[in-house]
């Protein structure tokens, strides 16, 4: 791991040094502009820079922001945050063997993660093998999460606090695509390491799939020896848009150790649907994702940890001004709006029959300015209503965020 970081750092600074000598040597790699890209293509649909004849291309993105929030009259004050600095390295080992990695530094160096690091072998358009650290294709956001692509500073709550985006695991799988005139069909299927007991035994006091990311050993060994299956099918029509259906499931608990049975096998199942389209004429971009989580929680455990969850988001992005601004020729100003909802504990209390709360609704209006397609300056306002497990009067949180995010 350390060797890999050194290598990346060396390649990065080497190429930077070359660029300082002669910037002409840097060339931007061509992007697919066919309009037939899918969410699952997001890992490669990024701006990369290649230097000279090096077989390695580099890229990355950064996100920084300011925010001021107030929760029921109490504020933590003015906050400046460096949310992410992400580095990509891709390499064409041969014409049909590619390697791509994504290393992310979150909140400074609080978290350093390899979010993607896999080699792809292309045998046929419908038959590609991928091995390494892959992003499990559940929903759309998990694979298509780069900050500069979004008009919103916060990632969707349902994608990061219910689904575990960014959720990567070591494993292998197949993927493929087929194009026919205005249509593209695609699939992905992977077996990877998976979740662990923490999803129902965590300090969030709720069923929380992201809790498994705390397990630093998950890239080294499976928590229970049972693989997690993740599969997705997606279809896009040039005029209608993209629809994705995905599933992720497996055994999450450590049911045996050293040959001794510790518990029955307990499963986690996640279903997701995602859709995006751009409305003709007015160019409104709509992007939505909804997911359902089912977890086998022991009957004798606390109802604090729910067996069923659901949630999702829908984004509307409306370009309102497409003209050069301050010399930026392809400048676009967008108005955007996000609605999101998560119910972390769907059901009723055994004791009283009352509805279990533990849910959040939020609305996020936004204005963004894209001086170039790869850079965004965003101003967001967020208003959250969050109910505790008992359904008591909601805690209201609202505030402003201002930030920048750019590929580099």
């Amino acid at each position, binding site marked *: 791991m350390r060797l890999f970081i050194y290598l990346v750092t060396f390649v990065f600074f080497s190429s930077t040094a070359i660029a300082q000598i002669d910037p002409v040597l840097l060339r931007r790699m061509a992007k697919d502009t066919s309009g037939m890209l899918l969410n699952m293509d997001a890992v490669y649909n990024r701006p990369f820079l290649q230097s000279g004849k090096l077989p390695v291309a580099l890229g990355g993105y950064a996100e920084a922001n300011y925010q001021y929030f107030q929760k029921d009259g109490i504020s933590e004050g003015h906050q400046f945050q460096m949310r992410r600095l992400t580095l990509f390295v891709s390499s064409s080992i041969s014409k049909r063997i590619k390697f791509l990695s994504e290393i992310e530094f979150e909140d400074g160096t609080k978290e350093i993660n390899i979010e993607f690091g896999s080699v792809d072998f292309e045998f046929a358009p419908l038959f590609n093998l991928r091995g390494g650290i892959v992003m499990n294709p559940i929903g759309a956001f998990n694979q298509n999460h780069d900050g500069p692509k979004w008009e919103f500073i916060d990632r969707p709550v349902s994608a990061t606090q219910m689904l575990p985006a960014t959720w990567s695991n070591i494993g292998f799988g197949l993927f493929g695509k087929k194009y026919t005139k205005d249509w593209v069909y695609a699939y992905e299927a992977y077996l990877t390491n998976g979740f662990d007991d923490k999803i129902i035994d965590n300090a969030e*006091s709720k069923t929380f799939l992201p809790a498994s990311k705390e397990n630093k050993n998950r890239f080294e060994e499976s928590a229970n020896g049972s693989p997690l299956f993740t599969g997705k099918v997606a279809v896009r029509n040039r005029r209608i848009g993209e629809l994705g259906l995905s599933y992720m499931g497996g055994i999450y608990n450590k049911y045996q150790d050293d040959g001794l049975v510790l518990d029955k096998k307990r499963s986690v199942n996640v279903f997701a649907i995602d859709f995006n389209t751009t409305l003709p004429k007015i160019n409104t971009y709509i992007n939505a994702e909804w997911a359902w989580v089912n977890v086998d929680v022991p009957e*004798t455990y606390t109802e604090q940890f729910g067996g069923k969850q659901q949630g999702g988001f829908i984004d509307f992005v409306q370009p309102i001004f497409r003209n050069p601004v301050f010399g930026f020729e392809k400048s676009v100003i967008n108005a955007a709006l996000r609605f999101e909802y998560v119910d972390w504990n769907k059901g009723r209390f055994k004791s009283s029959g009352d509805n279990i709360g533990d849910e959040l609704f939020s609305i996020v209006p936004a204005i963004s300015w894209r001086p170039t397609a790869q850079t965004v300056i965003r101003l967001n306002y967020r208003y959250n209503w969050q109910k505790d497990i008992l359904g*008591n009067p909601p805690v209201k949180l609202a505030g402003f965020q201002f930030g920048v995010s750019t590929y580099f």
Partner: protein
Amino acid sequence: MKKTILLSLIILSITAIIACQKILPKAPPEDELLDGPLEGLNYEENRRFLAGDVAFNDEIFTSANGLGSVFVATSCGSCHAGDGKGHPFTTLTRFGQVDSTGNKFLHLGGPQLQNKALPGYMPEQIPSGATFSNFTPPANTGLGFLELVTDADILAMADPNDVNGDGISGVPNYEYLPPFVTPFTNAIARNGKYIHRFGKKAAAYNLLQQTVNAYNQDIGITSTFQPKDVYTGLNIEPEVSDVTVHNVVFYLQTLKAPIQRNQNDADVVKGKSTFIQTGCEGCHKQTLKTDFSTIAPLSNKTFHPYTDLLLHDMGPGLDDGYTEGSANTAEWRTPPLWGLGLSPNSQGGKYFLLHDGRAKSIEEAILLHGGEAQQSKNKFIQLTAQEKNNLLKFLASL
């Protein structure tokens, strides 16, 4: 043109930010909140309050930091949302004691049932033959005031032989102290037993005992004060530090007292008179006072909890056949009524009143009174609809 639009957007954004105070959520009115510190704490006390607040409300126990293996709840705050009364979801069960001779089921896991368990473990079951009672978590507010009522004042409200003939004969719950509890300097002991005051049966002496027991019996957390693991029955290493326990105790001591709402409303004023006339104040004493405290906002204060901290026989309808300390099975400590009207804010929008949450409204709670409260209940039944309404409004204003 384009620069004008951009400039307009920037100005709009700046205006929105300046106007943010208008569109940021305000704090609910102070009198609608049960949580929050006493007014007048100094800087050091505020820091201790904050540390206790974090330990009470934010520290979630998991298997990694000592939860269980059997338990009732995963944190202090999960039973006392917003420091208010609890919900049936975290109602706890105690079993095994039928009289003042003690609990005969201690060797079988008594007195408290840990009815939930970590995956792979089995929760506790009520042993065959044991009687039990369910206890809904009480509100935490104002506990520091109640802790500082002197034994002399409590005894002054007691009337074990009903000398005044009002049908009310409150008695204190006398019990031995656990080794880690030091009696108050002005404590009045009887045969080595001391007056206890906290809990449904007044079986806890002070907030330290209450806190240590809650960590141990509710969450399965051991401490130097109570090192016995509830699952194995063995003494193990402390799972919560002494400092944290003391911070939580300080937090409970310095939570503000509930603030009455609409106290000048004409109906509320009339309701208060009716409350006194019907004899409710015979047990739900309006005004008490604290002794000296090193915490200035608690020292020598008069306050209005509507309790006498004494045990009263509430009749066969509320007799579950289970008890604690020297209380009889039909005896319950008078619950403070302050904060009563805010109960739905912590109970999921509903009322779950009396010791086990069986009453779904204030009126139902009154009608379930019996025993020493029978006369007052009869008077309540005979009130006109308007008088009842006023009384209920008064109670909801507390």
